[in-house]
């Protein structure tokens, strides 16, 4: 059983966004990490990269496959979670506690296109 956290925005491609002021922290959901299995590598974006809602910004590699990361928001990457370079398994241990990138949002109105926790829970069933 996978967990879902309330108060976050969710994308159909199984990323979450936590909004704090003008910034969004982006990670993948517990459902996604469970489907992937053991995560062995996270291909992080670089600081100052521009990301676009719906476009790929990196990848998560499990033992058996690579999955593209799709950005749920548009903006500029201001920070990446460097801890994932040495410990990619943190995604398996706590998918909601380990964000992948921090984005300065260029268009907060885009968040309306995302789901709340209830709607996301429904698509995971």
């Amino acid at each position, binding site marked *: 059983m996978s967990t879902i956290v309330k108060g976050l925005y969710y994308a159909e491609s199984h990323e979450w966004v936590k909004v704090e002021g003008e910034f969004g922290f982006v990670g993948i959901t517990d459902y996604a990490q469970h489907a992937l*299995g*053991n995560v*062995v*590598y996270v*291909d992080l974006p670089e600081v100052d990269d521009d990301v676009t809602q719906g476009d790929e910004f990196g*990848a998560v*590699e499990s*033992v*058996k*496959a*690579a999955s*593209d990361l799709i950005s749920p928001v548009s903006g500029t990457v201001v920070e990446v979670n460097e801890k994932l370079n040495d410990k990619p398994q943190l995604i398996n241990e706590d998918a909601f506690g380990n964000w992948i990138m921090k984005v300065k949002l260029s268009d907060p109105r885009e968040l309306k296109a995302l789901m709340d926790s209830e709607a996301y829970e429904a698509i995971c069933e």
Partner: protein
Amino acid sequence: MEETLETKKTCLHAKHLALGAKMMPFGGFDMPIEYSSIIEEHNAVRQAAGIFDVSHMGEVLVTGRDSEKYVNHIFTNDITNAPIGKIYYGIMLYPEGGAVDDLLVYKVGAKEFFLVINASNIDKDFAWMVENTKGFEVKVENLSEVYGEVAIQGPKAVDAIEEELGLKVNELAFYTFKEIKVAGETIIVSRTGYTGEDGFEIYGSHAYINKVWDTLINSKKVLPCGLGCRDTLRFEVALPLYGHELDWNISPLEAGLGSFVKLDKEEFIGKEAMVLQKAEGVKRKVVGLELTERAVARNGYEVEADGKVIGTVTTGYLSISTGKSICMALIDSAYSALGTPVSIRIRKKLFAATVVKKRFYEKNYKK
């Protein structure tokens, strides 16, 4: 991975569901990929013991006056005057030199051979075998649906089998087998596997294989292992997988399996093509590559050197046993010398890699 319209189930299918395995189609069967996690299962086989359902594999029995001559005709290895109880690895070739399949041949009797083939190739292989019986007095029977099969692999496999199943197997040398009468049937136990560790494969009725599975799982001495770690284990010791390192379009010489192609044998299908390829030298080769970064090179990714594509990755992983990002790749032979620098395109970026020995991990077989 191949999907067929109707996905088949092995005789252990219900056990996998009961254990909560993650299931996926493989070779036309709905198979367990992992139960706990690929890493945990992989390490169990390297350090202790694991059990795999390999009932999807195909079994073909060849009998009759000309059976030895016939098997030698369709198989690259030489089974002439083989002792009963011995097993041979080899390849069935098309006349042009590509592989129909790779397989094991068990010599069961003077005129009786048991052939073990890949699940995804059962129909194709059997048709090929039947087609090539012309001129031989042999009977070829597809027993794939009769037999169940489990592989018990790892340094503690021998003890688990002797203690829990009561079968005397430690006397078996690597690549030999014996038939054992048990519970009213004759089973086959061989010291073989696909993991690079010591281990055994057991062939028997669906009922017997279910009993073996339950007994070993309940003993807690072996961990149920899925096809996910079967692939990471065989990859680390450079065992080929049909459809990746060997294929209808990849010859055994290109795959580095020349020692299983006996060119001094009187004849076999594909011999002329192999003789010619050996004389001319292969233009492509399966090599090992080690990446400097942790990104993973997957099947089909392009390998580049001198600004051009020189081949593709056949299998790649972040090796669970060594922690390195490594892959096997089929590349232009001009770049196959150890130490040659190449690059691999992973998503949009090029990653540096070096040609290394493709046996990434040392095998631990009992000789």
